[in-house]
């Protein structure tokens, strides 16, 4: 079976006022159906660029990207994107935000209502359907954005540091919620984070990137079973994997440059 995402020798060069910036340099990566892959790396190593390419919001300078076997041509509801800054429409209530994509799919009012309510309840916002984004906390906003992305039923979820702006406690909560939903639905997830701990805790596979130019410097398998627990976070095995990822992020030259499937 074809991989869910296939990034093939992709290079992305930005034309900026200070000349050309190579954001991604000949990057290749395959993600299988139902995999949970996290992407870590220092700021500016091209994580968002990679995600936006898969989302179809950007076009590669060279190379190609296949999603579900077909080349990416523009964004589409088969790929749900969750942005770091929530990106909820502030003029719409939580429910109307979730209904936005459903309306585009031609669902009638009653169907939209039901689907939206279902997904709001899934993220614990069942009673906040009529609240405006400004009336929600950061964590609630992000949960609403997740509900909005889930509601259109994408086979692939692309998340760009979705929990970056949250406090540590809410963040852990959101991680567990996300994993619970993922285990239930097994959609493919590509998840960007700055946080090495988060990367290891969530992922089946951690992709470590290095900057200037953006490359994949290491791919680390996380053989811990799901559901992940707080005890696992404290286990020696977790510490060991975490250590390898940490070194990859902070001293990219010290690790071997691996391409392909992990250790």
């Amino acid at each position, binding site marked *: 079976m074809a991989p869910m995402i296939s990034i093939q020798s992709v290079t992305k060069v930005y034309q900026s006022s200070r000349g050309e910036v190579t954001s991604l340099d000949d990057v290749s990566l395959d993600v299988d159906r139902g995999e949970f892959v996290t992407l870590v790396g220092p700021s500016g190593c091209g994580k968002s660029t990679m995600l936006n390419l898969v*989302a*179809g*919001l950007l076009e590669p300078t060279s190379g190609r990207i296949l999603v579900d076997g077909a080349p990416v041509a*523009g*964004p*589409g*509801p088969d*790929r*749900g*994107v969750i*942005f770091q*800054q929530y*990106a*909820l*429409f*502030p*003029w*719409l209530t939580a429910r109307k935000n979730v209904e*936005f*994509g459903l309306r*585009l*799919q031609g669902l009638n009012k009653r169907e939209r209502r039901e689907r939206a309510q279902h997904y709001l*309840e*899934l*993220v*614990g*916002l*069942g*009673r*906040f359907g009529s*609240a*405006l*984004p*400004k*009336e*929600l*906390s*950061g*964590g*609630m906003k992000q*949960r609403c954005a997740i509900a*909005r992305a889930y509601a*259109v039923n994408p086979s692939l979820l692309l998340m760009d540091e979705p929990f970056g702006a*949250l*406090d540590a*406690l*809410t963040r852990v*909560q959101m991680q*567990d*919620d996300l994993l*619970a*939903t993922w*285990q*239930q639905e097994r959609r493919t997830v590509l998840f960007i984070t700055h946080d090495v701990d988060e990367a290891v805790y969530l992922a089946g596979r951690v992709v470590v990137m290095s900057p200037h130019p953006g490359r994949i410097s290491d791919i680390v398998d996380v053989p811990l079973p799901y559901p992940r627990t707080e005890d696992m976070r404290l286990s020696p095995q977790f510490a060991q994997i975490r250590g390898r990822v940490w070194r990859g992020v902070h001293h990219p030259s010290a690790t071997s440059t691996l391409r392909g499937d992990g250790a």
Partner: protein
Amino acid sequence: MANKHAESLLEAGRTGPADAGGAPPPTPERRRMRRAGSIAWLYLATFVLGIGLWWLYAALGDNELAPGPPEVIRSFGEGLRNGWLLEHTQASLGRVVAGFLLGVALAIPAGFLMGWYRWARGMVEPWVQFFRTVPPLALIPLVIVFLGIGETAKIFVIFLAAFLSCVIATFQGVRNVDVTFVNAARVLGAGDATIFGRVIVPASMPYIFVGMRVALGSSWATLVASELLAAPTGLGRMMQSAQQFLQTERIVVGIIMIGALGFAMDRLLLVGERRLTSWQEVR
């Protein structure tokens, strides 16, 4: 089963540290209302104080031509009885409303086009920037040459003032729409038409209202100038003839009418603004 997980997530939602629980609290609304109450008292107090100072000056000063509140009220009553006040007010209000509505009705689509299409920006912006710095008063001789001294010419000057203030604001609004909102709509499957109607328009609404309120101000400000164009009626006309006959109390009546009507129309816009942009974070 789906239900079990939904429950676990619900539980998380309930105990999550960020959650307040229950319905969104109505307290900010109430606080705003209380604040609005106290500010209304301040409005009244400063109004009374201003009238009092004016009265004091008119009564104590030895300037024959400084009208006090009683003279102005008398003139006001006379104007109502003889009909001239209503006549002048109607004429002016008609011009302002027509010029303002035309200006805004053209400025909003023009601003959207400028923000959305590069070619529209390139074609419209130089003209807007050029005429923005030219006071409408300076255009009047030229307007007379092209449009004569009829009603069209007066409305045109007001229209121009309203259009120029509003088109810039609308354009800025469209330019400032956060690109993440556009991307968020695109990844949910939205095409250009949907993005325009359901993202660009609502997101730039606050700017458009600012533009409309500025346009309203410019419309009234241009009114008196436009009525220099040999208007038979209008508040500006009325004030100019009052000046010739040294009827200073009539000038004050004119000022009060313009101020009050401008204020009332601005409040109307404000109500619309509150209704359509109450989603905004900062208020």
